């Protein structure tokens, strides 16, 4: 397999992606607070650095020097394991996401490399599988803390993830049918070019309903508002991470931000044509990729500070009675059209 080849390239790629994700989560923390401030007509963090841009670093330093606490009744092993599991699955999921076309880095390399850590031929499923493992971090944190609020957070997380994973996977399947491949790179490349010379051949235009379902289910999968039931601070103190402090606590929000980035990157690859875009030469395709991911992340934050949280029974009703049937209908119609047009 190709995975065993060129370990140096893979190593550099892992280093770059790992650090990019860490920096992205820091930028997101700042962006979240700045955009929230803007939407609520105030400044947001303003004191650390010019316009408060160094605030994330101050936050991390503060958390590093906090005392690490563990409740007496907590399960020693699982309490430690839970945040590690969260952050590891968040990082690993991005390994299968491609973010740029083949490039020689402006002639720096002899043969072109593919921008992305691992080029797997079932990449769509790998990302889905790894993100679906992320729920264990939250559930275990809830159970191991031995606190009623944490336990409720964990229970909610598992029920919510199971419910919304269905709609999420079904909307993915419709795109896979159109592209005829499970490789994210091939899905992106099948979206190159334009219709009538000006409409980009993005699956967004073929799958508008699928895209909306994907984004909604993606918000629920990453536990963001308006689906942030596992945390729900007005009801559950802080939900699954109530008993956590210091670095262990910091890992949970960081995992959440990295999951957001992964979710947006996959949405970009599947629906928004990945690194294909007008004006820029192919070697700069990753700039398009970053812009599109950035836009989806902005929508994420925008949504959080605009839409209030649902009620728990509404969450379940919406997931099972509306979102899932809609995604199945979308899948059936797509399948019928693909069959009809290919025949």
């Amino acid at each position: 397999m190709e995975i065993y080849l060129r370990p140096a390239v893979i190593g550099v790629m892992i280093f770059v992606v790992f650090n990019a994700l860490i920096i992205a989560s820091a930028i997101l923390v700042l962006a979240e607070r700045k955009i929230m401030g803007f939407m609520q007509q105030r400044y947001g963090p303003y004191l650390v650095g010019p316009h408060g841009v160094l605030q994330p670093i101050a936050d991390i330093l503060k958390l590093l020097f906090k005392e690490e606490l563990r409740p007496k009744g907590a399960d020693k092993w699982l309490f430690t394991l839970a945040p590690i599991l969260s952050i590891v699955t968040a990082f690993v999921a991005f390994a299968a996401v491609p973010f740029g076309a083949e490039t020689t880095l402006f002639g720096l390399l002899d043969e072109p490399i593919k921008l992305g850590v691992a080029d797997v031929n079932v990449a769509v499923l790998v990302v889905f599988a790894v993100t679906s493992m992320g729920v264990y971090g939250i559930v275990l944190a809830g159970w191991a803390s031995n606190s009623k609020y944490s336990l409720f957070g964990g229970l909610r997380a598992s029920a919510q993830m199971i419910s919304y994973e269905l709609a999420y996977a079904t909307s993915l399947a419709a795109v896979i049918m159109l592209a005829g491949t499970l490789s994210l790179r091939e899905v992106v490349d099948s979206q190159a070019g334009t219709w009538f010379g000006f409409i980009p051949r993005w699956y967004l235009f073929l799958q508008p309903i699928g895209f909306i379902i994907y984004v909604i289910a993606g918000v629920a999968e990453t536990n963001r508002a308006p689906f942030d039931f596992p945390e729900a601070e007005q009801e559950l103190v802080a939900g699954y991470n109530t008993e956590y402090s210091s670095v262990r606590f910091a890992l949970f929000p960081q995992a959440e931000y990295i999951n957001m980035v992964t979710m947006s990157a996959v949405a970009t690859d599947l629906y928004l044509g990945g690194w294909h875009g007008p004006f820029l030469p192919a070697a700069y395709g990753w700039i398009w990729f970053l812009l599109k991911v950035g836009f989806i992340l902005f929508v994420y934050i925008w949504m959080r500070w605009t839409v209030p949280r649902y009620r728990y029974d509404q969450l379940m009703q919406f997931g099972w009675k509306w979102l899932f049937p809609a995604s199945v209908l979308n899948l059936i119609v797509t399948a019928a059209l693909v069959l009809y047009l290919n025949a």
Partner: protein
Amino acid sequence: MPETFVFYAFSAMAIIASTLVIGQRNPMYSVLLLIASFGALSALYIQLDAPFVAVAQIIIYAGAIMVLFLFVVMLLNAPREDAAEWDRSHPLQHPNIGRFGALLAALLVVQLAWALAKVSELETPVGARADGASVGSVLEMGRILFTRHTFAFEATSVLILVAMVGAVVLARREGSNQ
């Protein structure tokens, strides 16, 4: 040979985790060890050049079914099982049950030995095929599933539907009209 080393590492992990599943007193740990064992199995599938099966294993078992297991264990708040509290009159404690279990285990060993003897007779390894398509290829798998095994496939889906309807009927409380 790194592949051989990886194979033995994950095999050992699968066996140890599976053994510990039944050795745990805490049901929560059993569930987690089962997930670890599924993960090790999925790594073995990748080595057999069947990435689709490996990923399906993770998505279906580790990602969906075990989350439900965990949910149930947490919801019922299942307590630790302590040897002292184990009821001697429990039907599983009957000596005949033990003998039956031993018989089943012996049968399993015979079956495994037979299957392994069969495998060594095959000329090509499982993953490598003359036409280059691996067994794990999604296209190939879908084609076989909907041609040669159509009946088994459809029968399984009906079976699952029946089980689901059954679960809903059983879960509905008597006398409630909602």
